[in-house]
């Protein structure tokens, strides 16, 4: 048994290192990819700024405070995108028969998707996100105590888990709705959009939906309320700031079950 674990790990290492080397083989293309991803992060910030520069506060938050929400959410999304972004194009993987290749290897499909399709270029997005978060932590007024420090550490981890779970659900969904992959974007990319903005600016039913059904506001906005000592709006009370970790665990569990039933359901076309 021990021997098998070692050989699996060796196989995994081989797959990952081959994948990483192939990604940086064409240096010009790789550089333009990374720059493209960084500019993507930058425009997401400019989008927020284009709204906030017109008003003194947005959803009850100052510019610096919205930057904290943006930074926390962007770091979470960038990490999840780096790990699980490939499940977004599951329909393509199924249609081209690439899934069969993954299924015959003695490693779980999910582990292969996470490791062998680890897209280094997506690090560009993470670089900008970390930068935004750092600036936000410096310029916002935060009362440092055990609770805020703990929240700042666990929030990006829980946030990344929430987005990973959403990506996983999006991937699983595509086993049933091949052409309907855009449905999932409403929750993955829509969730990212909501997560980066102050939740109080949403219509009330959407506050409730994106907190208690799709936990997008729990990624950054709700914890930020506690970190900044603010009261939340009606649909997102400040105590929800502590729900990030339990929500991440529950959602991940559900989506893993969903993913397993999707893999079980899959029948090859004899490719």
């Amino acid at each position, binding site marked *: 048994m021990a021997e098998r674990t070692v050989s699996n790990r060796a196989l995994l290492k081989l797959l990952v290192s081959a994948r990483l080397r192939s990604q940086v083989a*064409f240096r*010009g*293309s*790789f*550089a*333009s*990819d*990374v*720059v*493209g*991803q960084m*500019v*993507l992060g930058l*425009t997401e910030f*400019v*989008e927020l*700024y*284009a*709204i*906030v*520069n*017109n*008003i*003194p*506060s*947005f*959803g009850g938050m100052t510019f610096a405070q919205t930057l904290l929400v943006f930074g926390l959410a962007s770091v979470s999304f960038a990490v999840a995108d780096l790990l699980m972004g490939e499940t977004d194009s599951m329909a393509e993987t199924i249609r081209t028969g690439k899934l069969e290749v993954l299924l015959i290897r003695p490693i779980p499909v999910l582990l292969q998707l996470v490791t062998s399709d680890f897209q280094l*270029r997506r690090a560009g997005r993470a670089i900008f996100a970390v930068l935004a978060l750092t600036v936000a932590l410096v310029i916002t007024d935060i009362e440092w105590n055990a609770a805020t420090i703990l929240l700042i550490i666990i929030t990006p981890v829980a946030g990344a888990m929430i987005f990973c779970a959403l990506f996983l659900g999006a991937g699983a969904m595509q086993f049933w*709705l091949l*052409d*309907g*992959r*855009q*449905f999932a*974007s*409403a929750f993955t990319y*829509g969730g990212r*959009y*909501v997560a980066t*903005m102050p939740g*109080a*600016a*949403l*219509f009330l039913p*959407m506050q409730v939906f994106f907190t208690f059904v799709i936990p997008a506001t729990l990624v950054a906005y709700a914890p930020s309320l506690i970190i900044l000592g603010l009261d939340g709006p009606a649909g997102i009370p400040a105590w929800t700031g502590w729900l990030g970790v339990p929500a991440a665990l529950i959602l991940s569990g559900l989506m893993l079950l969903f993913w397993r039933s999707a893999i079980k359901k899959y029948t090859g076309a004899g490719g």
Partner: protein
Amino acid sequence: MRAYWELMKSSFRRHSTYRLAAFAGAFTNSVFGLIRASLLLSAIATAGGSIGGYSPVEAATYVWLGQALLGPIGLFGSAELSRRVKSGDVTVDLLRSVNLIGSYWAQDLGRAVFDFLPRGVPPLVVGALVTGLSLPTSFGPYALGFLSILAAISLTFMGFFIMNLLSFWVVEIRGFWMLYMVLMNLLSGFLVPVSWFPGWLADFARATPFPSMLQTPVDILAGRVDGGESVLLVAIQLLWLAALLAVAHFMVRFGSRKLVIQGG
């Protein structure tokens, strides 16, 4: 001309096969519309009535028209030509007796015509029910708006086609593509109206063809601009279209000499 008409019709049929995809697109566009409308309305409420000349209902109309038009206009583009360069299939395209740009242009128009109803109507219905829309009551803006949408579809197509043509020179255009798409999405006024931008960014956006790709048709259809000003805006769209067409033409001419098909 006949060949292009047939290409357009077959592209329409091709896209009409994927009804679930169109429905899924309309669903997602509507969800994004709800998010964007609530954010802009909240900002306007804080500002005390209007931002950049947009009252609440006008801002909501701007959001819903944008969400309705993004499908038909094709704001996320198609990288088909670049894929065909990679696979070598582009040789077939270049051997055909139809013009390369014209054939892809006609196919994109066919796609747009199909996308119009299934992807355009649902967001407008959701918008009318949730926030209300403020649309002009006279005929003029719709007629000119139709022309402006056609120009925007062609202009957006031409911009992405130029990015596709880069693949005649470089192996992988994904980075350039991403760069172009995010800048275009921002500067076209798709995410936030151009008049909301800080001054320097608004000036920069107006010096590019991007506002002609979305902000212009949305402004005309919403009746935000009228008379001489709206005709001028359409004229600007057509000028940009001519300019981008010229660039694409030269790229095809010089690029196809440079193009090397691998292992064909």
